[in-house]
């Protein structure tokens, strides 16, 4: 077989899903065996942001765009300190990147962190399979080529449902992201992306980042102008401790949640969450802002979603919910993309206004956070 780099040996890699669906490729980075939930992302650019996004913890990510690695890796585009995906699957990896910002290859970067990257996979077939049969557990191996054994392994792997992934990616210690800013924001780190922190900073916030299990008291003690609930990996029901603390903050401080943050806020308000068949991951979903009927092209990255009862049901549900207002809706499948509670001064968004990667259409939401923080 033809090698893209002369000195390298070709290492065959097998991908097996829990239902036995098998594809064979080769590694372009690393080797070994790894399990995770296999998901696809349809963004055509931004592989570096995706790989380093802590929300992908526990997941093996495949890119639907076939050519990956083209513009290399640079230090500015990281969403966290290291790659967070369990493994990375592409159709064709490029080992000769060219871009003025590039500081190295994707292969080097993944290998530095012992992440397996494989190529030569019919990623479209894989995507279609997941679309039809739902997100699935999978295994990639370069050491075991017995398919049955791999199926066994993957089926013995518990997967992500109900599992707390947050604890693997949340910071251990509280830290100060920046020291200047009109608004003091405490950001609860369920796996926060750098670009969210940068957006907050750009929007005149001084951000204190605290671990996911920080108590409400401790947060309120800091008397912040607002509390931010970050994105994060895994099943939102797996972190009841987080929901419990947020509940205590409701009404006391303005709250803004993004993605996992919305799922936490939703639970705190009494809504439930569910797992989407194969999730939303990409940079092209239309989301309608119901306040002005404007459509935003959004960045999406979530496998779970907050249940959306209709208006009447909400009314009947009572409690906080009767005043809950849906603000954003996904036009592809009508799922809930954002809600707010004016009385409690809290709102949240299921998608990613900070983008990275993806369109910047929704960055105004950080301004809205400023606004509710300035209301006295």
């Amino acid at each position, binding site marked *: 077989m033809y090698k893209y780099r002369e000195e390298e040996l070709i290492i065959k890699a097998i991908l097996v899903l829990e239902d036995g669906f098998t594809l064979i490729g080769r590694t372009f980075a690393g080797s070994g065996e790894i399990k995770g939930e296999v998901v696809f992302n349809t963004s055509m650019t931004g592989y570096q942001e995706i790989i380093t996004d802590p929300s992908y913890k526990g997941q093996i990510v495949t890119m*639907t765009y076939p050519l990956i690695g083209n513009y290399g890796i640079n230090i500015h*585009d990281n969403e966290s300190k290291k790659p967070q995906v369990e493994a990375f699957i592409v159709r064709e990896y490029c080992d000769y990147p060219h871009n003025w910002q590039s500081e190295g290859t994707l292969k080097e970067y993944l290998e530095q962190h012992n992440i397996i990257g494989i190529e030569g996979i019919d990623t479209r*077939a894989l995507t*279609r399979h997941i679309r039809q049969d739902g997100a699935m557990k999978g295994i990639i191996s370069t050491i075991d080529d017995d398919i049955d054994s791999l199926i066994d392994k993957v089926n013995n792997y518990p997967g992500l449902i109900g599992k707390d992934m947050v604890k693997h990616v949340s910071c251990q210690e509280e830290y100060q992201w920046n020291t200047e800013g009109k608004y003091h924001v405490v950001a609860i780190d369920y796996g926060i992306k750098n670009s969210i922190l940068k957006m907050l900073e750009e929007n005149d916030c001084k951000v204190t980042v605290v671990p996911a299990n920080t108590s409400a008291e401790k947060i309120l003690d800091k008397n912040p102008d607002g509390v931010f609930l970050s994105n994060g990996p895994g099943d939102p029901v797996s972190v009841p401790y987080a929901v419990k603390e947020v509940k205590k903050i409701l009404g006391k401080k303005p709250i803004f949640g993004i993605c996992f943050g919305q799922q936490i806020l939703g639970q705190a308000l009494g809504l439930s969450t569910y797992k989407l068949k194969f999730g939303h991951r990409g940079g092209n979903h239309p989301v309608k802002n119901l306040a002005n009927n404007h459509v935003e092209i959004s960045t999406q990255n979530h496998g779970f979603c907050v249940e959306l009862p209709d208006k009447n049901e909400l009314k009947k549900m009572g409690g906080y919910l009767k005043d809950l207002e849906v603000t954003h809706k996904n036009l*592809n499948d009508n799922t809930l993309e954002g809600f707010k509670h004016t009385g409690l001064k809290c709102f949240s968004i299921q998608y990613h206004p900070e983008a990275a990667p993806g369109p910047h259409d929704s960055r105004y939401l950080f301004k809205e956070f400023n606004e509710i923080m300035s209301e006295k």
Partner: protein
Amino acid sequence: MPKRTDIEKILIIGSGPIVIGQGCEFDYSGSQACKALKQEGYTIVLINSNPATIMTDPEMADRTYIEPIEPDIIEKIIVKERPDALLPTLGGQTGLNIASTLHQSGVLKKYDVELIGANFDAIQKAEDRQLFKDVMSDIGVGVLESAHVTTLEAALEFADQVGYPLIIRPSFTLGGTGGGIAYNIDELKDIASNGIYQSPTDQILIEESIIGWKEYELELMRDKNDNVVIVCSIENFDAMGVHTGDSITVAPIQTLSDKEYQEMRNEALKIIREVGVETGGSNIQFAVNPENGRRVVIEMNPRVSRSSALASKATGFAIAKIAAKLAVGYTLDELQNEITYETPACFEPAIDYVVTKIPRWDFEKFPGVKNNLTTQMKSVGEVMGIGRTFKESLQKALRSLEQDRHGWGADGKDIYTYQELTSLDQSEKADMINKIKIKLITPNSERIFYLRYALILGMDIETLYEYTKIDKWFLYNLKQILDMEVELRKSITSTTSDSLKSLDRDLLYQAKQYGFSDKQLAYIFNKDESMIREHRIQESVEAVFKLVDTCAGEFKAYTPYYYSSYEFENESHRSEKSKVMILGGGPNRIGQGIEFDYCCVQAAYALKEENREVIMVNCNPETVSTDYDTSDKLYFEPITLEDVLNICRKEEPDGVILQFGGQTPLKLAFALEKEGINILGTSPNSIDLSEDREKFSEIINKLELKQPPNGIAYSFQQAKKIADRITYPVLVRPSYVLGGRAMEVVYDDAALENYIDKAVELSTEHPILIDKFLEGAIEVDVDAIADGEDCIIGGVMEHIEMAGVHSGDSACALPPYSLSDIIIEEIKQQTKQLAKELNVLGLINIQFAVKGEQIYILEVNPRASRTIPFVSKTIGNSLAKLATRVMLGEKLSDMGLDEYQKTNYIAVKEAVFPFIKFPGVDIVLGPEMKSTGEVMGIDDNFGMAFAKAQMGAGVLLPLEGSVLITVNDRHKADVLPIAKRFRKEGFSLIATKGTADYLRDNRLEVETVSKIGEGRPDIIDYMKNDDIQFLINSPEGKAALKDEIKMRRQALLKNIPIATTIQGAQATIEGIEQLRASKLDVKSLQEYHVD
């Protein structure tokens, strides 16, 4: 809010004839718009002078005006039809310019016509380059330093400030006409003065050069609620300095990080909002400095453009259709994504493949023209290749080009072979590198192949980047293709005797994934293509088909739009329905244009009506045939044996139609038949009969018809013998060519020898054909349909120029305007005889030459001809549709058709030429086709129809002024009556000495003017001073004189109408007489056809 109900009737302006820079993409967009708006219940009034378009099919609009796209004419249509709105954004630059004119002259206001899609302000802001820059600076978007000047002095002044090189771009012109790159003061003087002249507003923009930056393009859509989406992003393979239309381009963008891309996107959004394009598509071009990421905006087109067609095909997003709907008030979120059904059109397509567009040039048509690429577009068409990798899509696109290449080299067609280049010694190698370096530094149409030679020679990516500024990512991909080839070659050196036996299956599979064609593999392994195919199938290395679905597989897609690749999963599944496959015509080029696409689309419509599943195969993104809703299934694939067989293996069609796609599919006839594919219509054998000289002569003799005396020669000796027998002048050409490629009239032995030296180099496999050249014969084209028993004549067209001017370049009239009824009848009879003898099933086209009472047969084409749409529009019946039914087995006698009747109106077709783009080229016509497009004029008399055709072609016949006559001795007597008629209409006459003397001897008042070199003021001065309104010039014969060429070029530059034939002059005076005597009226096809 749904569509507007306050407007009912919408006027749509088409883009007119196909010219360089404005191809059939606007037929695609216009057709989509017409269809969409008609569906919405609006009444559509359409104007387009181009009869070859699908959009001018009478069913497409309620009222179809095939009239010149001129402000006065449109005003007449507006007065007559009183439309509520005008949609100007789908007819290219032509449509937009005309709409601006109509707005400025107050016509729109006067008749209460609203501009929809883009308002006048937005058009101004985007199109006026200076205004655009000012606006951009205001909103903080980077632009280049530049000056807008109207005089040469001002241009020079700017140059002093900024330095060279400089880019010159005239305002409001198309495809960079009149622009260029000036590296020094002399070039600046040349280009700037020409540019000022070319611009309709006498303005040019000179600008600092950023040659070598990366070039990008974004396609946007905006609705009235200010929702904006980016439909497609495109990256140019060739760096800034090569016009986008001449660049290889790739979608999506490959080498920008997400941040860089999003910032560009943000800017694009800002720009479209600021310019104020209310609804519809726009495209914005950016340049990015590869050193530091600095970005500037180059230009914006506030309309559907050439790239929109590409973007539509590249993503599956129906840009034109949606733009039309947005223009009438819909918003993006109200419209459905027609591919997924469930999701709205308000999204940004995600694609999971790579699209590569490669332009098609026809430089060899214009001897003496360099194939260098600059900021002025020169390509005449394009192809698109879709693959899962850039490598695959590039190689597919290259083999789609119809230039006898089967991929990126390694196909037996390389100028320098792999073996040659790898066995050079050191000094040879150094020489070769120098030779190749030049070809890399100056962009040219062959550069992509020179990159291959360079890589084989071991030049590294850094060096190639330095020479070409093509992004290293692209160069690396090219290198990978070469590395694969080397790997394949290595596998041969093993000891087994059969080179294929030692070929590892994985390697073969990977080679296919890299886009290697069987032909390339056959060349590398020294086997037949068929052996590679068999081996491949045995090893189950077979193509699969993937869907173009706008969403990268995220949603279920319903639109059957496929491309092939070598992958795990196949997504195209055969249905049980009876199915017919149509092979399209490939890229537009001179000799094969939109006409063939028209026929393919008509066939698709007819097949649908006959309840067949239609499978379309084509690779030209500009076309209607590659619109996914034209057929039941679309395969966007190269039209080669391998690619077509791949589809046949999956689809097993009941039959394949080849005769509508021109020469491209026809070439495959025998090979497909051999593979057991059922060819519908005329059999490959019959096609061969008509193309094989000897066999055809036998038929002519058998039927006792006449052919010009002729012969076939394989050597100069043979050729000379034939020439002696049939006597000079003779017409020579290589066998098997379309569009009269390399065809020449030769007057003596020396010229014959000279020609053969050249021609044999042109094609070693084929002999040359020699015919007696019939001087002064009237050429006649006939289109007919035959079913094996009957034959119905569609139309008999009389050419205006004599035989010797290629039928594609000659104007012609339907019905004939001077031929006697007896001759016409005889021509019809001969057509029927030939159709029967050749066993034609479907269309047949015959070209005759009539000399006195003698009728000669020049050529028989048992297939769709260039004139099918022209005839169909004129007679009001679609010949291609009828022919399709015949091919399915229906009998003409059962179709209730009347024999072709003489109409009481007359249509004239006129050709349109690209000479303006090729400096220094002579504009005289000959047997080699040079036109890129055509227009039609229709009226109730010949003169007016001719005048309209001229107008449509951009030639405004003068109604007064001076006529310059300078003709050779043979034509002096013929020109006399014409000169008299010009006098009678009040024109004054100017002539060069010989002609002037002759006219004066015949009692005409003439002013004598000096020829070039005979003293000043000379002809050129007269033209420059606007003292000449019409020029009659018949060439001196044989080789045209340099001075003559200069004179004709000057006329071209000054846009002075010129007749280079006596017949052309005659028709012109007839047109002028009509224009002076009566009012020009407009009338729609629907009205003509009812009468």
